């Protein structure tokens, strides 16, 4: 897939950081405002897809090999399942939210009813949000990248 004109490239490189920040906001505030790992990851992946369309798949593949992407995705997945295993370790049951109520990271419990958004709540949920966010960003971008690259290189028909 060949890249687009100069204007589109400059505009997309200006807008790209804004999309990244917005996506990371959705991921990090998943347990307070509507959103979470999947939705935020999809926003950031759409930003990356925009860069892919603007600069073309050959340029993007040189910048970000799909092996690194699948490595990043495996790391995100491993963090997620390890958080679940920690639940088994500390909270005595698989997938237990062991950080709630402990004064460790993200420990405080919000009092009932309408509250102001205090980010230090939610126990394991924000950590899982980050893990799933990384995984969705790397995963969706890898899918878009591989399909764009495959349809562009004219591999001979067997």
């Amino acid at each position, binding site marked *: 897939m060949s890249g687009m004109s100069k204007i589109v490239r400059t505009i997309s490189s200006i807008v790209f950081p804004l999309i990244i920040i917005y996506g990371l906001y959705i991921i990090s505030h998943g347990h307070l*405002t509507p959103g979470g790992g*999947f939705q935020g990851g999809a926003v950031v992946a759409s930003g990356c897809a925009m860069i892919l369309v603007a600069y073309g798949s050959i340029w993007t593949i040189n910048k970000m090999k799909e092996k690194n992407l699948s490595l990043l995705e495996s790391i995100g997945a491993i963090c997620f399942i390890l958080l679940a295993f920690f639940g088994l370790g500390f909270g005595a049951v698989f997938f237990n939210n062991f950080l709630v109520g402990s004064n460790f990271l993200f420990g405080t419990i*919000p009092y009932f009813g*309408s*509250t102001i*958004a205090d980010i230090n709540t939610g126990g394991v949920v924000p950590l899982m949000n980050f893990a799933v966010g990384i995984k969705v960003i790397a995963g969706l971008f890898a899918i878009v990248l*591989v*399909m764009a690259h495959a349809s562009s290189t004219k*591999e001979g*028909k067997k």
Partner: protein
Amino acid sequence: MIFNIPFIAVSALILIGLYAVIFRRNLIKMVIGITLIESGVNLFLITLGYRENSVAPIFTNLPSGTIVPEGMSFPVPQALTLTSIVIGVAVLALMLSLIIHIYRHYGTLDAREIGGREE
């Protein structure tokens, strides 16, 4: 009270999608049909979880005066629909990459022609 209009929309979506899958021979139209069925079932899941003039079940800056359990829509169908949408994306990505490969190998997208052809 708009009676059952959302559920009628759900069955319409599913039937159109099913029509596309059964009667259309072009592979990409089949995939579009499956996506239609997918969105129909997701719409059905979401509309099951709605309560009369209720608010989203989020407690940050909750509008004052909402009675907590009755004034909020159900959270579980929304979580199920999130999972179902991501499954839809995954299946769609896999089907489209298989179609790219089939087109590259057979040169046609007509299901009956591919079925008839040998290697």
